[in-house]
């Protein structure tokens, strides 16, 4: 049933209905949109002051795109993170050097280039930003037990209960600023009895504290409309009405606002002033398994230790079953009488709960572990437990069928024995430089749909073997040689790229044939007489 049809039925209830279920809707005058209807309905609610027990701290993180895309701030020069909006490429964050040159978020990339000619440009990485925000949410548990994520770049913390612990609001804000600063983040803070008000404060007048519900309305009234972050047309409408601050907007007749604006305007206002509850979703700290076992005697032989390890795995199995979760990483720590404990790490491609699989990996690893001294005690720690239903969703193709399990089990076994760095998947990277046109990835994750679009493939043939790094060829009489003279079969294919990131290449590639019949992919550094072997057609 559509909204319109429901309303039509609301106005003229079926004769069978005795109760008047739709009285409020029936009482609406000729209001055009359902939005204003709900706004009016709310207008009749009694004024409700925000609960004095809540105090919200909003942390707005403008540098999140920068920290996520360039974690180490490795760049010594001006660096900007850009995103594409329609046809324009806009700066979404920049480092301090770029800021000193006058670059600001929201600027066009072309304008930024004019301000800082040797600008380093990186694309925004939304996935990395989400990860970083989650990491910061975990950090925020040091300040309070209630943390809510507000993507893309905001955290909301309910801190009423933490004020006394940290010595008041000012001290809490100073601590948050300092700890975020140490992680490379700048932060704009707002503290208010409602989450919405704290958010607006952080945006419009960072550092402001409204500690008491009594002063909330007065302080909010002074904020400019821009603090709300509402879409441009709403803000323009306000300006046209001669409204510059929230206080002026709030004084306008409610019915008029409901008719003029969409529902979220009144909704946001009510939330900010504490007249409407705005529940936030709580961020959960991931659970981890941790259990210690004192050994009956000092054991130095890993075969003797195996049963104790497996007992701990059994405990882990119970822990995971109760939570319907799986883990992807395990660490066994063998404590010795002195010195550091010996750590044995196990990993799997996907979070898994089956103890049997872990047991197999453990056996494989224990065979090749030498303890430096007998162990006194044993600790098993797990990585973050993830709900199993959601775990496989991120891996298309790995639907949890038996055959897929087999493929994953192979990966796990190879990694357990050979190490994480010995097992790779491969994927394409859209890049002209041959050495940068591929990437090694974790194999299980290397199946994103449509990543290898044929559009990004080079037109000319590429060799099946690529050398780890180009190998200089001897030259005689200006001609390159490789176990004898080379015959150039085709070429040149000119590849010039990478001048912007310091990895500049200017090369002419040729296909050459050796006297033995092998076909090589060789290039000449442009402007030089140096020849290099880069690939073999195999």
């Amino acid at each position, binding site marked *: 049933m559509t909204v319109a049809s429901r309303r039509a039925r609301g106005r003229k209830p079926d004769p069978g209905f005795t109760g008047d279920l739709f009285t409020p809707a029936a009482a609406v005058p000729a209001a055009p949109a359902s939005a204003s209807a709900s706004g009016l309905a709310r207008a009749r609610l009694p004024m409700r002051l925000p609960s004095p027990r809540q105090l919200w701290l909003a942390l707005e993180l403008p540098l999140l795109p920068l920290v996520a895309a360039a974690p180490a701030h490795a760049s010594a020069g001006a660096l900007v993170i850009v995103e594409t909006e329609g046809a324009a490429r806009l700066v979404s964050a920049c480092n301090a050097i770029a800021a000193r040159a006058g670059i600001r978020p929201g600027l066009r990339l072309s304008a930024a280039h004019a301000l800082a000619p040797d600008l380093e440009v990186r694309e925004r990485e939304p996935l990395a930003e989400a990860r970083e925000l989650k990491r910061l949410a975990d950090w925020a548990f040091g300040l309070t037990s209630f943390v809510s994520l507000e993507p893309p770049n905001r955290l909301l913390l309910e801190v009423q209960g933490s004020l006394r612990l940290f010595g008041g609001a000012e001290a809490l804000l100073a601590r948050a600023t300092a700890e975020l600063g140490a992680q490379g983040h700048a932060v704009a803070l707002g503290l208010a009895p409602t989450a919405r008000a704290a958010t607006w404060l952080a945006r419009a007048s960072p550092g402001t504290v409204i500690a008491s519900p009594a002063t909330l309305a007065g302080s909010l009234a002074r904020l400019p409309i821009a603090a709300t972050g509402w879409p441009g047309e709403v803000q323009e409408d306000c300006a046209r009405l001669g409204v510059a601050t929230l206080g002026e907007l709030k004084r306008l007749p409610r019915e008029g606002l409901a008719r003029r604006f969409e529902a979220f305007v009144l909704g946001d206002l009510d939330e900010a002033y504490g007249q409407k509850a705005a529940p936030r979703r709580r961020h959960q700290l991931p659970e981890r398994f941790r259990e210690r076992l004192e050994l009956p005697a000092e054991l130095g032989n890993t075969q003797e230790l195996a049963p104790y390890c497996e007992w701990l795995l059994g405990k882990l199995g119970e822990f995971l079953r109760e939570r319907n979760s799986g883990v992807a990483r395990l660490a066994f720590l063998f404590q010795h009488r002195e010195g550091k404990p010996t750590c044995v790490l196990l990993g799997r491609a996907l979070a898994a709960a089956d103890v049997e699989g872990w047991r197999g990996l453990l056996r494989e690893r224990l065979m090749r572990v030498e303890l430096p001294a007998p162990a006194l005690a044993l600790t098993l720690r797990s990585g973050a437990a993830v709900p199993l239903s959601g775990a496989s969703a991120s891996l298309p*193709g790995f639907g949890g*069928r*038996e*055959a*897929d399990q*087999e*493929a994953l*089990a*192979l990966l796990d*076994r*190879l990694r357990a*024995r*050979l190490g994480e760095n*010995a*097992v*790779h*998947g*491969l*994927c*394409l990277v859209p890049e002209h430089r*041959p050495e940068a*046109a*591929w990437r*090694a990835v974790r*194999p299980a994750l*290397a*199946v994103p749909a449509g*990543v*290898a679009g*044929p559009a990004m*493939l*080079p037109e000319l*043939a*590429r*060799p*099946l*073997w*690529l*050398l*780890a790094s180009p190998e200089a060829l001897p030259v005689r009489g200006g001609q390159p040689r490789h176990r004898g003279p080379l015959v150039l079969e085709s070429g040149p294919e000119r590849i010039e790229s990478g001048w912007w990131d310091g990895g500049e290449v200017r090369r002419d590639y040729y296909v050459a044939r050796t*006297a*033995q*019949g*092998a*076909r*090589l992919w060789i290039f000449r550094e442009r402007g030089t007489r140096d020849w290099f072997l880069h*690939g*073999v*057609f*195999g």
Partner: protein
Amino acid sequence: MINAPLDALLKRAAVWRARSVPAGAAASVDRAVPSGWPTLDAILPDGGWPLGTLIELLLPQAGVGELRLLLPALRTLAESRPAEAGRRWLAWIAPPHLPYPPAFAQSGIRPERLLLVTTGSAPERLWATEQALRSGSCVAVLLWLDAVDDRWLRRLKLAAEAGGALAVLFRPVGRERDASPATLRVALEPTAEGLDLWVFKSRGRGPARIRDALSS
């Protein structure tokens, strides 16, 4: 008819004819994969590279055409056994160079299907190959190795039989005289004209030489 007893004998399933070429390609699809090179397919039993057993290719050096020789078969395997069916990987154990993803994409093999295992020690290479062959999640397992104990080769052959993948061992030339349980042994001999193949061990037939095998 003089030949009647012989014909009757030949019709019995237990009797293999050395030069028999399979009647229908469908029947042999699981025993062999067409190599894509007609002169080679013509002399291979079942008309292609045998699956589920060990194949040995001997090379004077990397890059003489060994990948071009295998590529059509790898593509056929990758296409006929989609990753979603669980047979996911073309495993490369300790190759001499990087199998270059753009070239494979150009040849119609998605780079995501390649599984690269890089490890230096021979026992670990052999172990990894055995695991990959047994797991049943690989359509092809390619191993590069020089000296190897023939007991290990026997283990690899058993693993290949269990998993049914295309199993190819690349070794340097000069190992022809080493005993090997491989079902098919081929030496690659590049010449100025092209690549000659010296098929010196093949099930049910004598040695054969193919000149310029990749020209067709």
